[in-house]
């Protein structure tokens, strides 16, 4: 891979291009933090008002699935980091292994989340359901935030798994300029942010009422 194909207009040098790409993804991540914080704020307000209801509702989420999923995302962040570090040193096979493992752990998370959603549905843990099982003020609000925030997170993770998989496929085919660009680093930053958001969702939805 020559530097000429890695460098794109309007940039004059590769370091300049890498810095611009890194700054760009951090701008996006900052907007993501503000976007999610709106939902965190709503959760906090209602938790403050209905703390007993939130505690009662929190006991109904599956702590085993939640903990295993947190574990899976932490492992996936480690494998993603290896892919980036290997990319800087030019170890193509390790980059590929890191990406495939990351996409695999992300997929495992999604499978477990789907099973958990199915269980939640069969227990009628749906706000507004006539037979909602927890008769406490605020319990339905807890589950409103549970569904919205975990679903928005799952959408982000689906985008992440897709992006990592496409990157791995392009790397395997040899159609990805990965050596001198910030491509892998930018992809990893997005992945790590999804992990960081989950790190905060986990205590709010799985650890209350234990």
């Amino acid at each position, binding site marked *: 891979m020559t530097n000429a194909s890695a460098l794109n207009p309007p940039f004059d040098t590769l370091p300049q291009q890498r810095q611009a790409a890194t700054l760009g993804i951090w701008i996006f991540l*900052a907007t993501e933090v503000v976007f999610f914080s709106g939902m965190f704020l709503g959760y906090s307000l209602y938790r403050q008002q209905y703390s007993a209801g939130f505690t009662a509702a929190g006991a109904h989420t599956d702590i085993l699935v939640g903990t295993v999923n947190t574990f899976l995302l932490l492992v996936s962040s480690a494998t993603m980091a290896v892919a980036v570090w290997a990319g800087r040193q030019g170890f193509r096979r390790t980059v590929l292994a890191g990406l495939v493992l990351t996409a695999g752990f992300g997929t495992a998370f999604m499978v477990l989340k789907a099973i958990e959603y199915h269980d939640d549905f069969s227990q009628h843990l749906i706000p507004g359901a006539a037979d909602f099982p927890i008769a406490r003020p605020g319990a339905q609000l807890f589950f409103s935030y549970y569904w919205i925030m975990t679903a928005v997170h799952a959408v982000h993770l689906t985008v992440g798994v897709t992006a990592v998989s496409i990157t791995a496929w392009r790397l395997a085919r040899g159609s990805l300029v990965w050596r001198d660009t910030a491509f892998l680093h930018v992809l990893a930053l997005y992945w790590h942010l999804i992990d960081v958001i989950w790190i905060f969702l986990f*205590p709010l939805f799985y650890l209350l009422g234990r």
Partner: protein
Amino acid sequence: MKSAPAILSGMWRKAAVIWALLTLILAATVTAAYLDLGDFKLPVALAFAVMKAALVIVLFMELPLTRASTRLLMLTGLLFVLVLFGLTFADRLTRPDQPASFDARATFPQDR
């Protein structure tokens, strides 16, 4: 100059050490959730979350290695979050009574 296998195993080892640390904090988080901490349960859980997030942001996302403009950008994002929470709770915690529309029982009559 280190050999390629040495550099590679070094990378995996570094990732494994950070991951082990994260897993240890996760174990502590889950254990603390079952302890009788009263009102401190959520603050303790969130403190562990901040530790995990800090490890990921500093060591995996390498925020301290970025340029000052990037770090400033992220701090601006956090500042907006602080303003959002600060102003909202300044109002919420000092207001003696709630408007009826703020009560979940008004919006969700089935929420007994």
